[in-house]
């Protein structure tokens, strides 16, 4: 077996070990993930998109200032924490109080908002 092959094997072993250590860290160190949830990087006219159910800590949308957009959550009470804005980029809404919900963003205008990126964080 060549020296080079042994070197690669050692590298892969270290990488695997690092991943295992990362997975075994306490929840606080690994919890929290991000999802960019509007497909295709834009919002069509009046489009409403959701990130799926989770315990979301915040929700945001990036887009050029101007068009009115909304952020909100959908849980067993219906639409909660509904907020609309035209100027902030990103526009952010913390959702820690809404529990298990769908983080949602929507375009309040008839025109496409392009580019636009909706992101939710757990």
């Amino acid at each position: 077996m060549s020296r080079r092959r042994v070197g690669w094997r050692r590298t892969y072993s270290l990488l695997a070990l690092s991943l295992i250590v990362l997975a075994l860290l306490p929840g606080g160190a690994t919890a929290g993930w991000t999802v960019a949830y509007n497909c295709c990087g834009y919002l069509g006219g009046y489009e409403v998109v959701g990130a799926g159910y989770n315990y979301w800590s915040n929700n945001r949308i990036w887009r050029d200032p101007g068009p009115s957009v909304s952020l909100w959550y959908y849980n067993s009470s219906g639409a909660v924490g509904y907020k609309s804005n035209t100027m902030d980029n990103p526009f952010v809404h913390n959702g820690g109080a809404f529990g298990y919900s769908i983080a949602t963003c929507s375009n309040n205008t008839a025109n496409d908002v392009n580019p636009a990126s909706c992101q939710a964080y757990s």
Partner: protein
Amino acid sequence: MPRVALMLAMVSVGVAAAFAYFGREAEGGSVPQATGMAALMNPSISAGSVAAVRGFPVDLAPGDGRVRPLGYAHYAWTRGKSICHVDRSGTGGCFERFLSPVNAAIGDDDAIGSGVPASVRGLATDDVTTVTVVLKNGTRVRGAVVDNAFEIYLPETATPWDVRGEDLTLRDGNSVFVTETVRAPAIP
């Protein structure tokens, strides 16, 4: 060869200077910068002492860990060319310039029609003294601007999408109407 290099360097410096000059011109103009709020000079406090700021995304948090208190439990801080801000409900964001004299978030802190009434909260330039929220049915609800912030609660039965806009009274006595577009949420 050294002469060619010198000429290239001079051309590069010229192009860079032109970009800097015209870039500055483009950033100027009549649109107020987000930094044009006197309350951004208020004494700063620790970001860690404000729950709404602690809940804000880490990548948008104040770099120096300090925030400026504005009116109505609204907080702001500088981040690059932007001003970032958050209100008592955890709503905010970052912006570089005002597109109108107010940057408003229209919404409801909890479920629509229950709990805390719907509200219009936001930041205002130094030019604005009062904000009057105008509903589609003609109802008007007035609030003062305090330290570049405003917070106006709507009548119990009103929803965010009942808002037609804000009628602003300016320091020079003139008024400006800002039209808002808010839609009822559809199930995602």
